[in-house]
């Protein structure tokens, strides 16, 4: 049998074993001592009875006894008796051992034996005679009796049965108590587990409601304390990222303002100066995009991202998004005539631009954008006909700064685009999944909740 794995099962098992063992030990001990005293009492009774009977005979004893006297003595002692005198005997008791006979020559002895018919008590005693000098000496007559102890044995058996019953009765009670106790232990443990899971899942505000002053409450407080620290460290990091991004904006504002001037005033006769200025413009734009995305990520991390939902005609929004970036001619559209939904127009634009931009950069034409209503959701599917995504890339494609192929030249994106798109989808209560289309090529599906716009 395997040791049960759950804490509850183990607690209950241990509890039951202890409780039942305790109950059984107590019951058995009680039964044993009661049995022992019952037996002792029976032995005392039979012995006393024999002594009384012998004492009643004493006046009639003439020594040496003839056979008739021996028979009479035997008769007065009930059945199962034997009287001997120096080799002569009245009655026959095969149970009596030689050992007992030897011991019974000068004192009363008894012995318990188990026979096929049940337990028996063997008693042997000499009959004493009082001489003229008042000295009591063995008369040479020895009396042996066998007494039945079956009644006592039955009583002891009943006691043992009761003990067994008591132990058995303890079992359900023990199980119940164990379950109650286990619940008392396990409920706080489960709370700790659930909170830890919530923390691991990213909800750093999860805390355990602790009460009491036992070790479990201490555990809860410790976990809460740990969560506080983690949250504080993370908050500091996020503030740092937000502050850095914010600080970067100031010089970037200046750079953005002046690089165009530089590029425009660069003379055609100085190709190096011209190219340098153009590089400065391009890289400044990339830096601006990166800082914007970093700010956006910090807003998501800080829970400051707010949805500004309004009725949006989705096909138009998709077209506008592509037109603004000059992609209308490069993308096949599969859009319904009308589909109005309540969405954050700007965030939808960010997602579509990201998905289509990635498809154009990393995939191969034709890039297709399809919009469908599926139940109470709307789905925007972006597919390309490139090599598709490797399993490794699929697992990490939404990670920040994940580059699918380090051998490939870096894309002009910030590396945060898909992470932000996913966060935007979730902010809507929707989702964004990556996969591969059947004919090869990457396939991204954005699902957003769709309630008919009023």
């Amino acid at each position, binding site marked *: 049998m395997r040791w049960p794995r759950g804490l509850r099962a183990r607690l209950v098992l241990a509890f039951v074993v202890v409780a039942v063992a305790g109950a059984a030990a107590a019951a058995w001990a009680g039964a044993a001592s009661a049995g022992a005293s019952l037996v002792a009492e029976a032995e005392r009774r039979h012995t006393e009875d024999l002594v009384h009977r012998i004492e009643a005979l004493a006046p009639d004893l003439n020594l040496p006894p003839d056979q008739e006297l021996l028979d009479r003595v035997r008769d007065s002692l009930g059945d199962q008796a034997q009287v001997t005198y120096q080799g002569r005997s009245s009655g026959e008791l095969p149970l009596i051992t030689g050992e007992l006979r030897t011991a019974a020559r000068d004192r009363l002895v008894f012995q318990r034996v188990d026979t096929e018919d049940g337990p028996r008590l063997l008693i042997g005693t000499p009959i004493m005679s009082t001489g003229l000098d008042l000295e009591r000496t063995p008369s040479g007559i020895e009396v042996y009796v066998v007494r039945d102890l079956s009644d006592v044995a039955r009583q002891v058996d009943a006691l043992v049965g009761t003990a067994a019953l008591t132990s058995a009765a303890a079992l359900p009670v023990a199980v119940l108590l164990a379950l109650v106790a286990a619940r008392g232990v396990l409920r706080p443990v489960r709370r700790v587990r659930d909170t830890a899971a919530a923390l691991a899942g990213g909800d750093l505000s999860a805390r355990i409601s602790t009460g009491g002053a036992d070790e479990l409450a201490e555990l809860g407080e410790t976990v809460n304390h740990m969560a506080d620290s983690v949250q504080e460290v993370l908050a500091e990091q996020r503030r740092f990222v937000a502050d850095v991004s*914010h600080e970067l904006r100031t010089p970037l504002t200046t750079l953005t*303002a002046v690089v165009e001037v530089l590029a*425009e005033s660069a003379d055609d006769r100085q190709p190096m100066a011209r190219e340098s200025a153009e590089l400065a413009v391009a890289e400044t734009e990339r830096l601006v995009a990166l800082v914007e995305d970093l700010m956006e990520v910090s807003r998501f991390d800080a829970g400051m991202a707010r949805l500004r939902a309004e009725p949006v005609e989705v096909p138009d929004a998709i077209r506008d998004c592509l037109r603004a970036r000059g992609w209308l001619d490069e993308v096949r559209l599969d859009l319904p005539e009308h589909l109005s939904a309540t969405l954050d127009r700007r965030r939808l634009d960010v997602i579509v631009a990201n998905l289509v931009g990635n498809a154009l950069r990393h995939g191969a034409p034709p890039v297709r954008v399809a919009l469908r209503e599926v139940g109470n959701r709307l789905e925007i599917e972006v597919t390309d006909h490139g090599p598709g995504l490797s399993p490794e890339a699929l697992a990490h494609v939404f990670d920040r700064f994940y580059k699918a192929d380090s051998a490939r030249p870096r894309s002009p994106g910030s590396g945060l685009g898909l992470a932000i798109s996913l966060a935007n989808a979730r902010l809507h209560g929707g989702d964004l999944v990556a996969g591969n289309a059947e004919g090869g090529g990457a396939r991204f599906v954005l699902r957003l909740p769709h309630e008919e716009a009023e």
Partner: protein
Amino acid sequence: MPVILLIEDDPLVSRGLQLALTRYGNTVRTAGTGEDGLRACHETAPDLVVLDVMLPDLDGFEVCRRLRARGPVPIIMLTARGDDFDVVAGLAAGADDYVTKPVRPAVLDARIKAVLRRGAPREDDTRTHGELEIDAAGAVVRKSGQPVALTPIELRTLLALSAAPGRVFTRQQLLEQVWEHDYLGDSRLVDNCVQRLRAKIEDVPAEPVYVQTVRGFGYRFGPV
């Protein structure tokens, strides 16, 4: 050649924007603090103010409110955070438009021109709607005979709406027509502008007669 007052505390940013905007044909004056900005505005009477939200003394919102209290000079807010807080507070303080740092000179210049534009004079110059008299040619609005001071954006919003009384305009339409924003314009610009308009032309701004809200769609003028 419009005269622009740039109120910005960072000297390098200030100089960079001044260079860029000058290249686009503007005359740019600068001020480094809110107080200086208010003083410069009083002395030079610029055509437009570009106002940074983060200022060392008075914050940009306070400067914006004081400028508004003096008259209808167009104001564009420069916000560094791009946070909703900045945008909402800036528009509530009376800004006509806002841009987020870092801003491309071409974009800022386009916004400046849009906020300054007074609209082409129209033939049928004056129309009267109830107590409201709108002189499109002279770009003057009178309420019960008294002239109402409007910024160009407020005036053009009112002109756009009143050109077709009873017709519903979406926020997006107004953003493209009046602010000349692209398809991703911030509809809060329109809402704030309408609120300021109502405060100036309605008897009871909470129960508007002239500029009415059509829930879920946008705004319409009257009909009165």
